[in-house]
């Protein structure tokens, strides 16, 4: 991946000159043109000395957020924001006049394709007591300039919350590091005397770290407990870290002051990374780290150091905390970035000394990250810096190791939402899928506003472009799910009512089952292991809502026979049959034949049941195709003719066992699959004029769903469909969920007529 970062040789300090105010820091403001309030800019100006002992990196960077604003009559608008993308300006040009500073430069976006874009920032001398304002414009060819008015919010570029807990065995003063930079005689001659803490070290680096004032105590007194493993540290974090259950990524991390690591030579560890790197191997990563107080580094640690050894211990204590938190910001060690000579928090003193001589590290180190690291920390692509974003050491890191680029997340995969969220967008499914079992998920939108009805587009299949799905595969790679087809269709709006107190749930939400096994780039769930799925809903107007992160597991083949079958199963022909939900095209015949064979062989499993539904679906409508190429090359007309009749009887036979398999599971997570299958069978029964059988199946479905706690409006629609079965008629659709959609619309009409 090409990095928008240019080399750091252009880093320089631009003194403010004849303007007497500092412009650097973080700014925030909404778009003023061409569409006022459409989105929000988080702007970072790094062109002059914003804080003491803090080098200037001569960069500008920013993040765009989409604003969701919903007007509520009589109340303030409901506002939330969703992260969209980041950019950087590497060599801004700064012009100073008596009353203003103007900065211009070329914008490099981290992801995606953008036209050449230039940035201009104008900051007028602020009046006393008034916040500094930056007027920002982005100009790209062929479009109107995008203008923002941003207010200076902070001298820091980013803000991070740090929660720190202590193990009881090491809960002795000092638990957190403080050091005087001049306490130890081995130091650079130019060292400015000052007290450094975690917060101050990061403030100088450009990040405002807020440490939670309260600290949980972890009782580690069990007589059989001696030392920590990465897995145990991660496990404790999952219980102790208050933010762990929230939506990630977020600017939060957890630190633990612990006793001893399994390898006592380890003084600190950012344990939340892939197992291949020595971490606990659980995504999202970079959320937590530990410092091991019983390491011999800290034997002489005292709250008020007096001796040289005590000063060295205090210095090492601070170094370890800052270093481990640095890993959580996605830093590798200096030598892993081909910078073994770096005087950085991320280098090892003994490694540096081995190259340059004894004590050379501490006699030269200025208590800072190196320039490349500061650029990453302050201006790096948000996904590669924020905790829980790109995996540790992935391509998002500026100095990524070769071949790690593929681990970086695509745009949008790490979007988060802040503020008053108007709509919940939920991804869920059953947690476990058998190997080769078609993977389908439920996508649900729900009105969260207490008093306002929302009219939302309910086309949730990614084919319609309103929903984007991201899948994190077991190897850590994050892919955007791309449907094989893109469909243009009118929006299908539904009124989602507010769920007020006393109102029955159900009308506030809409759910849809979406198959995501196969897409434009092949099979997405073809390896056993853990997958994470996340989606973005682009609703009507400018609404943009990211979903939860949904975790599911794909099992390993349960037999050698099934493993061998995988060779044929993970093919274009089967994939397209799954995608199309059954096709009798001669070009996909091989796939349909294999699925038919497997549906019979594994009839008692969910794999067999789902394949049966797909094969049956191909039988529910006639199939038309053109004849073979005419022998006469002059003859250009190809005739479309019916190749197969619909065979609803065969389709019903095909799903007779499958429907029982799903029914008998009694799993709530299979409700939508069950509903789809009955929808298909009702269509077939109606085509055969077996209305009573259709009613019977709908009634059974109603009762089964009622037993799993399905909301009343859904049950009413099924009941209405059963009662008015003659009026309902076959839907004439083939796609499974489209049938359900048509049946629901018919049923809704019946319900409304009954109500009136």
């Amino acid at each position: 991946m090409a990095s928008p970062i240019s080399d750091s040789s252009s880093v320089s300090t631009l003194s403010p000159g004849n303007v007497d105010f500092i412009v650097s820091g973080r700014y925030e403001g909404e778009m003023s043109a061409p569409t006022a309030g459409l989105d929000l800019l988080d702007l970072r100006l790094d062109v002059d000395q914003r804080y003491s002992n803090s080098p200037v990196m001569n960069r500008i960077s920013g993040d765009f957020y989409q604003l969701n604003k919903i007007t509520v009559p009589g109340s303030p608008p409901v506002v939330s924001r969703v992260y969209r993308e980041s950019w950087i300006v590497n060599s801004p040009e700064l012009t100073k006049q008596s009353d203003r500073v103007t900065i211009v430069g070329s914008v490099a976006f981290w992801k995606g394709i953008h036209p050449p874009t230039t940035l201009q920032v104008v900051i007028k001398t602020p009046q006393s007591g008034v916040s500094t304002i930056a007027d920002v414009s982005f100009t790209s060819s062929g479009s109107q300039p995008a203008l923002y008015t941003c207010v200076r919010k902070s001298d820091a570029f980013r803000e991070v919350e740090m929660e720190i807990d202590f193990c009881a065995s090491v809960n002795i003063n000092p638990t957190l590091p403080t050091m005087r930079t001049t306490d130890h005689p081995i130091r650079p001659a130019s060292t400015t005397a000052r007290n450094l803490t975690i917060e101050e070290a990061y403030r100088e680096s450009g990040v405002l770290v807020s440490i939670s004032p309260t600290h949980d105590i972890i009782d580690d007194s069990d007589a059989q407990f001696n030392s920590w493993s990465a897995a145990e540290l991660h496990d404790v974090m999952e219980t102790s870290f208050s933010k762990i259950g929230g939506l990630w990524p977020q600017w939060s991390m957890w630190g633990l002051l612990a006793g001893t690591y399994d390898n006592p030579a380890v003084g600190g560890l950012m344990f939340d990374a892939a197992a291949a790197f020595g971490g606990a191997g659980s995504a999202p990563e970079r959320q937590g780290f530990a410092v091991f107080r019983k390491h011999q580094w800290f034997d002489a640690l005292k709250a008020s150091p007096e001796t040289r050894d005590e000063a060295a211990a205090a210095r090492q204590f601070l170094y370890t905390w800052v270093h481990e938190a640095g890993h959580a910001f996605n830093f590798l060690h200096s030598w892993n970035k081909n910078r073994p000579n770096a005087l950085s928090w991320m280098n090892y003193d003994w490694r540096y000394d081995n190259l340059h001589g004894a004590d050379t590290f501490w006699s030269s180190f200025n208590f800072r990250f190196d320039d490349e690291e500061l650029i990453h920390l302050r201006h790096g692509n948000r996904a590669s810096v924020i905790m829980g974003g790109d995996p540790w050491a992935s391509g998002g890191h500026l100095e990524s190791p070769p071949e790690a680029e593929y681990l970086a997340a695509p745009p949008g995969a790490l979007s988060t939402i802040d503020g008053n969220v108007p709509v919940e967008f939920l991804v869920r499914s059953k947690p476990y899928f058998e190997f080769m079992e078609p993977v389908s998920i439920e996508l649900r939108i729900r009105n969260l506003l207490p008093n306002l009805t929302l009219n939302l587009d309910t086309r949730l299949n990614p084919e319609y472009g309103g929903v984007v799905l991201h899948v994190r595969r077991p190897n850590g790679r994050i892919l955007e799910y791309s449907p094989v087809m893109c469909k243009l269709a009118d929006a299908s709006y539904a009124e989602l009512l507010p769920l007020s107190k006393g109102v029955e749930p159900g009308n506030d939400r809409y759910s849809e089952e979406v198959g995501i096994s196969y897409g434009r780039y092949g099979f997405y769930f073809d390896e056993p292991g853990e997958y994470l799925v996340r989606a973005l809903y682009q609703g009507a107007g400018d609404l943009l809502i990211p979903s939860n992160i949904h975790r599911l597991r794909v099992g390993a083949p349960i037999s050698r026979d099934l493993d061998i079958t995988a060779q044929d199963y993970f093919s274009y022909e089967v994939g397209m049959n799954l995608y199309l939900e059954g096709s009798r095209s001669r070009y996909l015949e091989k796939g349909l034949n294999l699925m038919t064979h497997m549906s019979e062989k594994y009839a008692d499993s969910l794999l067999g049941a789902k394949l049966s539904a797909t094969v049956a679906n191909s039988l529910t409508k006639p199939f038309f195709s053109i004849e073979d190429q005419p022998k006469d090359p002059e003859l250009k007309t190809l005739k479309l003719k019916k190749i197969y009749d619909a065979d609803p009887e065969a389709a019903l036979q095909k799903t007779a066992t499958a429907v029982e398999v799903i029914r008998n599971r009694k799993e709530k997570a299979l409700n939508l699959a069950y509903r789809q299958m009955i929808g298909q069978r009702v269509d077939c029964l109606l085509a055969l004029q077996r209305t009573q059988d259709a009613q019977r199946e709908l009634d059974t479905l109603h009762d089964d769903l009622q037993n799993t706690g399905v909301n009343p409006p859904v049950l009413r629609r099924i009941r209405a469909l059963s009662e008015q079965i003659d009026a309902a008629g076959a839907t004439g659709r083939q796609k499974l969920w489209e049938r359900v959609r048509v049946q629901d619309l018919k049923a809704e009409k019946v319900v409304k007529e009954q109500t009136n």
Partner: protein
Amino acid sequence: MSKLHVDFQEGFARDEIDLRINGQERLQKEGVTTNLLLGLALSAEIEVPDGRVTIEIKIPTKNLAKTISLESSGSEYLAVSIENGKIEHIVSQKPFGYA
């Protein structure tokens, strides 16, 4: 007898290592991989006779070998890495720390 602490650090990826002291095999491991979070692959503690010892390190999976001679008395710390296609080492009187 003295103690030799050997840390195999950077550059290992599912490698086999053989370590001999004065001609005797004292350590043999397969699948040694550097933990990138620490810069450490494997730590071992080996008793060695006092005085000058010859340490032969072989990494057959990378077709690398190196012989190191050091004076042993008390505790010695030896760091071994693979850098630029060669075995590099550091000898220290103090333990190496990792973070």
